[in-house]
């Protein structure tokens, strides 16, 4: 596999007809198209259907068979909507907010290994980059909330910033545990270290008896980082109407939503890369039946990482439609007094395990 690593993205990067870096543009466009497609299908339509089945409803049924075209109709509606900027809003911040938000969410996809053969930028500090760049979203949220000149938006923005900045600490420490087990921050290397003929047994989650602790901590913290229930306090619709994007309409609203779905997939992909093998097949070779070998390869890799990401998004949806929302102070309590200490404990334990248990 070593010689085919990043084969697709290297080939694309080399594709420069007439000196124009067209291939690089395509590399950047692939995650963008992926986010848009997945947000359209699984993100919006899927969530509506999944929530409907959880709640004894049918969900969208009118547009197309089983309402399949409902999301397209919604997008058409959003495109036609008037782009309203409130008169009292800070125009610059109001316009730039969704953009910054989306860029922050989208840039992290640069280091996401979609397959053994494809990664946008094979940085040797990929994981660090992914954690760091997502923090850019905070700026966008603050700009959007402050620029709206709406008290509810301001509340949403301030809550959101407090929440994301706080939860980055346990999340980063939990990911550090994974990085410690791998000994590298390179996303592709982390994946390669988890591949083997026994499938899931090579995943970091099953490699050490402590790994489940950072795994859980990161999962909970990631829910808070992407503002999903039970931590959807910044956009608590029954308290703050819609939080920081109350005043947005039309495509700006759609961009905010796209950024949110982008981050949802990003954290799900990161948790599956660091703890669940990323693009590695979970199927083991059983004697002569080489299931693992059969399900390994560039295309299979893309399939596995996207399925794992979708599974975690499903869990996020499942929690959202089951649990009530926490209160602001309870949220901070969970972060600083529960998750952060446990993250440190798991950090120390993982270090001990890595040093003394080979």
């Amino acid at each position: 596999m070593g010689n085919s690593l990043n084969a697709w993205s290297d080939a694309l990067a080399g594709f420069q007809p007439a000196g124009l870096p067209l291939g690089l543009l395509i590399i950047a466009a692939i995650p963008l198209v992926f986010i848009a497609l997945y947000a359209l299908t699984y993100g919006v339509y899927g969530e509506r259907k999944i929530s409907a089945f959880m709640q004894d409803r049918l969900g969208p049924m009118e547009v197309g068979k089983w309402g399949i075209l409902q999301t397209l109709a919604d997008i058409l509606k959003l495109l036609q909507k008037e782009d309203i900027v409130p008169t009292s809003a800070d125009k610059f911040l109001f316009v730039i907010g969704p953009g910054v938000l989306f860029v922050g969410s989208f840039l992290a996809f640069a280091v996401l290994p979609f397959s053994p053969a494809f990664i946008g930028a094979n940085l040797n500090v990929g994981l660090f980059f992914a954690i760091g760049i997502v923090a850019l979203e905070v700026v966008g949220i603050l700009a959007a909330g402050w620029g709206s000149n709406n008290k509810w938006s301001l509340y949403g923005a301030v809550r959101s910033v407090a929440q994301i900045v706080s939860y980055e600490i346990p999340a980063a420490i939990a990911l550090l545990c994974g990085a410690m087990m791998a000994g590298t921050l390179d996303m592709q290397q982390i994946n390669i270290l988890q591949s083997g003929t026994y499938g899931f047994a090579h995943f970091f989650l099953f490699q050490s008896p402590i790994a489940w602790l950072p795994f859980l901590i990161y999962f909970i913290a990631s829910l808070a980082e992407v503002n999903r229930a039970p931590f959807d306090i910044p956009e608590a619709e029954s308290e703050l109407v819609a939080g920081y994007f109350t005043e947005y309409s039309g495509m700006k609203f759609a961009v905010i939503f796209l950024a949110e779905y982008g981050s949802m997939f990003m954290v799900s992909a990161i948790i599956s890369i660091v703890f669940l093998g990323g693009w590695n097949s979970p199927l083991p070779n059983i004697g002569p039946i080489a299931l693992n070998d059969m399900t390994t390869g560039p295309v299979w890799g893309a399939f596995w990482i996207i399925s794992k990401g979708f599974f975690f998004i499903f869990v996020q949806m499942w929690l959202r439609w089951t649990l009530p929302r926490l209160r602001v102070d309870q949220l901070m309590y969970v972060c600083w007094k529960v998750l952060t200490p446990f993250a440190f404990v798991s950090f120390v334990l993982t270090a001990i395990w890595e040093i003394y248990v080979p």
Partner: protein
Amino acid sequence: MQELEMAGQGSLRLSRKSDTIVVLEKDLSTEQMVLSMGPQHPSTHGVLRLECLTDGEVVTEAEPYLGYLHRCFEKHCEHVDYPAIVPYTDRMDYLAGINSEMAYCIAVEKLLDLEIPRRVEFIRVIVSELNRIASHLVAIGTYAIDLGAFTPFLFCFRDREHILNMLEWATGARMLYNYIWVGGLAYDVPAGFNERVLEFVNYFRPKALELQQLLTENEIFVKRTKGIGIMPADVAINYGWSGPMLRGSGVQWDIRRNDPYSIYPELDFAVPVPDGKLSVVGDCLSRHLVRALEIEESLKIIEQCIDKMPGTQGFDPRSAVPKRVRPKAGEVYGRAENPRGELGFYIQSDGKSTSPLRCKARSSCFVNLSAMKDLSRGQLIPDLVAIIGSLDIVLGEVDR
């Protein structure tokens, strides 16, 4: 909100929450901000407006502003005949129309000194208890949505739908029934109604348990409601609270028991009050628990009524309905236990007219809401939402 001067440390802003004191900020001068919550806000349950004075997330003062849904109910009553007021009462508490009709009819019947056929009383109790369950389901469901849980809301509405279908079958309407008339009923219940009601009772019991496991036993739900918005029993009585609100504060007061009307004395049901094991007596969780327990009691009442109900032979639901309602000069106060508390009608008659000289509605929601200012002092914004939700107000009845 208290200001404590601590030597050498500047002022500490403290918020008193249940039994712990949370230090919010130190040496940080903040401006208070006026936040207008409503009339278009998802969790004010209608067109209530709260003008909140906020200090960060803490609400230092919240003043409710009413009247957005004022429809001159009392003035209208002075210009229409007694029976024609019944549809207006539907529009007061639109989630429990039948209960409002019942309270009004009790008052007028008291004024007329009417004898009501026994079967009519049974039907009245069955439909009003069904309506009470429907109303409590909306209260519990919307409370869940206030706290961010969406699924219990839809579970509640799914089950409420069965009740509304039954009531539609019996009365012809789903919301504004005009079913209980002065002295009788509009129609007898359709054939097979009792069987369908029993079928619903059997269907609903496991669903209520499911709802309890999903919502009431949820750790986050308990965390959000326990110890929030505590109303001591004596203050609640002074405010004139009634219904589940007063029972949530631990006072065993139910008009169906304490000032019985209709056939309630013959029925066996409990008046649930919180015992302080699951919740702090008087907090939001207690009020929620009382509603959840009352649904079970209503189911019991319905079962007993169907058991004891007289047959249809020689029964005319309008046999005692007077041709023309013209009471003797005098005044009366009739009241009934509504899902939201005591709904009373004070009616004054001059003895000549066929419409009342004065009709005053004692609205339970209005009285319950009056404590909002006290309850909201020093709470966080999410807690304010939890408190409004636990009050279970219907603005149609508050403003009338």
